[in-house]
């Protein structure tokens, strides 16, 4: 996970359920996302995907792999 910048999703390491949930929000391999902020103590991560801001729990967020 990168910090404060844009990146492109390469891979989502998760089972069917997780991938489906990410998918529904438009987070999938090949999509460009921007990280807006993280919260202290491994709190939720906020990213922009498309025109939406989404908050993702830290554990879930760390399953998303990006290339900057």
């Amino acid at each position, binding site marked *: 996970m990168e910090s404060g910048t844009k990146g492109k999703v390469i891979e989502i390491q998760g089972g069917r359920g997780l991938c*489906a*949930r990410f*998918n*529904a*929000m*438009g987070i*999938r391999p090949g999509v460009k996302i921007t990280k*807006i*902020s*993280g*919260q*202290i*103590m491994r*709190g*939720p991560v*906020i990213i922009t*995907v*498309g*025109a*939406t*801001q*989404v*908050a*993702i*729990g*830290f*554990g*879930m967020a760390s399953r998303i792999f990006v290339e900057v």
Partner: protein
Amino acid sequence: MGNPNVGKSVIFSRLTGVRVIASNYPGTTVEFCQGCIGSGVNKIEVVDAPGTYSLEPNSPAEKVAVAILDRAIAAKDSIVINVVDATNLERNLNLTLQLMKKEIPVLIALNLWDEAKHIGISIDAENLEKVLGIPVIPTVAVTGEGIKELVSRLGQAKRGEYNYVDDERWHEVGRIVDKVQTIKHKHHTIGERLGDLTIHPWTGIPIAILVIAALFFIIRLIGEGLISLLTDPIFNNIWRPLMMRLSDMLVSGSLIHKIIIGQLIDGSIDFGQSFGILTTGLYVPFGAVLPYIFAFYLVLSVLEDSGYLPRLAVLLDNVLHVIGLHGMAIVPMLLACGCNVPGVMATRILETKRERFIAATLMSISIPCMAQTAMVFGLLGKHGLRGLLPVLVTLFAVWLITGNLFKLLVKGESPEIFTEIPAYRLPHLPTLMKKVWMRIYWFLHEAVPFVLVGVFFVNLLYAFGIISFLGNIIGPFTARAFGLPFEAVGALLIGFFRKDLAVGMLAPLGLNVKQLIVACVVLTMSFPCIATFAVFVRELGVIDMIKAASIMITSAFLVGSLLNLIL
């Protein structure tokens, strides 16, 4: 149908005239609502469904949406109005394509059209219609633009014939979007920069603390203001003389007098203590509670419609994980501050049964509804912070500790937060006031009959000596444990029926500050009011209710005794 927070409920309200609550965060609608367009032979039934991102549901609320769709498909003469957010076309079309594969005609209401234009997105609606093969009507639900056209074209809804491979759905969406959407890039506005401030932890948390403190202050200000400037004068200067005249007309000491007027305190009516149907029975809901209900829902509605709630959820997520929940659980908790019933229902936005149980039980134990809170303020207010603070702190501590125990002892995982954060919107004043009015109306509708019946009932209990009877049995326990007089048992019993009335029953007992604190805490914690009880059973089942109830009673006993010892 459509994604959460796109304007489905607003369009529903426009179409049917049925007032539904719509807010600026995902998760407002958790159950379906029905209404009609037209009447007689031309009556069309319309159903407002909870939002969902795809037809694979992730929470009970989303499951409701899918169930509604299935029901509509089975009914064979239904259509789907797919409400699509024009500012998020790509993600919304994902659901659209899924809907089009189902055996049901669809048409699209391309909502938030004005906002899309505002941020530089322009969509060729006609082209989209050509590409998809189903009608596409741009709408601005909050102003009503496009609704007429939507209604006139309802008959043109078509079954989707767009062919695509399921796995390639996103590529298809991409292709479609490329054909119809152009985005003019707009620079980060000041508004957006401020918005980012509210969510970055270093600036966001102080802002959140300020906001929450301000909210408490404003609610108290408006509540007390309305009471001292409006309801007290009305009750004291207009109603009391009227009731005194009535009192003189009725035979003093008779049953009718007792029921309608209640006891005369010092030869006059005391609205807090007399306990007649037309005295206390009217004062409690209208004089003491309504001002706070108004204040609370005004503040809550602004909070909801501005779009701040999901950001608050993100900031508080770490705190909520202490009790086994994630940030969005703040929504049911906040709703519970108004009334536990919508609070329990709102737990449908949480994904697992474990979360819903924890959330529902915690709010029943330690979140007093505004009716109760208003009465507590009325009773303890004169002692200022010395009286109110211990109650607040104790309840919060119970919330944290019990929640933490739940997290450790109840089996299962704590899912993480995963929510969309909507754009900040300036609340539309007419819509906001309509929403506040709806909630007040609902409160009056629910509370007033119950309070009136409750006062009547209490008088009967007193008249037949039941309260003194029970007081003598249970009294010694509560006296020893909580330091409360025997008569306080009556309040505990009525607490099952209505919490505000129960607090009201403490008034004539002449309790000191410490006793009032203990009594208020015990009343909040001991058992939910009958309305909450009913919705708890409906949402979580009888077994969970029994579990929750036993936890509530034991903890109320423990905490009450503890408070009695240390205060």
